[in-house]
């Protein structure tokens, strides 16, 4: 319980989800690069930021959860339940839709985002650490 409270107050949950999403996106981009010359392959993308942004913007009091497969999911998704989605990129009509330059740029961009999220997470933990100790370092 304490762990949950600390984590919630410090805003760690979205950062952790972002880390997961970036790790997934890295794997997906790696797969696109590995298949850059595979005939018939269409690249995949990871959608995360837009759904997370929406979830953070429309945070409400109640977050109904699905407890049974027959339940109808209702209510805006809470930021905690935002999952990255893998989708196929829009069809280019080419045999192989991978643009290697685009993928390399996406790779570097995603790598930097990952590093940033790790850095922020580290800072949050340091803040908690300082608060617990009552002094910095």
């Amino acid at each position, binding site marked *: 319980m304490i762990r949950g409270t600390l984590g919630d107050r410090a805003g760690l949950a979205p950062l952790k989800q972002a880390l997961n999403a970036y790790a997934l996106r890295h794997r997906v981009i790696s797969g696109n*690069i590995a*298949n850059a010359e595979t005939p018939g392959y269409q690249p995949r993308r990871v959608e995360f930021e837009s759904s997370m942004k929406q979830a953070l913007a429309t945070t409400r009091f109640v977050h109904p959860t699905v407890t049974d497969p027959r339940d109808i999911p209702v209510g*805006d998704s809470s930021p905690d339940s935002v999952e990255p989605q893998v989708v196929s990129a829009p069809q280019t009509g080419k045999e192989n839709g991978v643009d290697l330059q685009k993928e390399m740029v996406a790779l570097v961009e995603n790598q930097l985002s990952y590093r940033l999220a790790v850095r922020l997470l580290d800072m949050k933990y340091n803040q908690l650490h300082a608060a617990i100790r009552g002094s910095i370092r």
Partner: protein
Amino acid sequence: MSEGLFSSFRISATGLSAQRRRLDVIAENLANAETTRTPAGGPYRRKRAVLAAESTPVDQVSQSEPFVQLVRSNEKHMAANAMESVRPVDPETGVTMTVQDDPSPFRSEYDPGHPDADANGYVLKPNVNVVDEMVDLILATRAYQANAVAFEASKDMFNVSLQI
């Protein structure tokens, strides 16, 4: 999400291995560009590297439709988000390479002095086009480099996450 960040190493490794073996095939084709005798008889037949994605394409992953469609007619209504509970299975995929014979016809060159020449003085030469092979060589090299960069990125991300 099965193997976490580690599976990106595996994916890049499949890419590296496929491209390197593709280079082997190209080297073999170039080395045998003029070979007129093989153990199977006849001139050397060009080999071709065929690349294929490893697992199911994302289109085959079920994106199940909700059987009821809920409409938000009032601002105070809660939005139904049935689609968000559907999570497709691991869609990231490596690459595999197989080697196939190129069925295109052999070149026929006029060289009456050649020991393998037929009655009319024509020699069957391998169906290897050196220019095509060189272009393929460059493509394979660049693809290899791209995979190596992706691998470096995986290493960096993994290192960074150890510093939390």
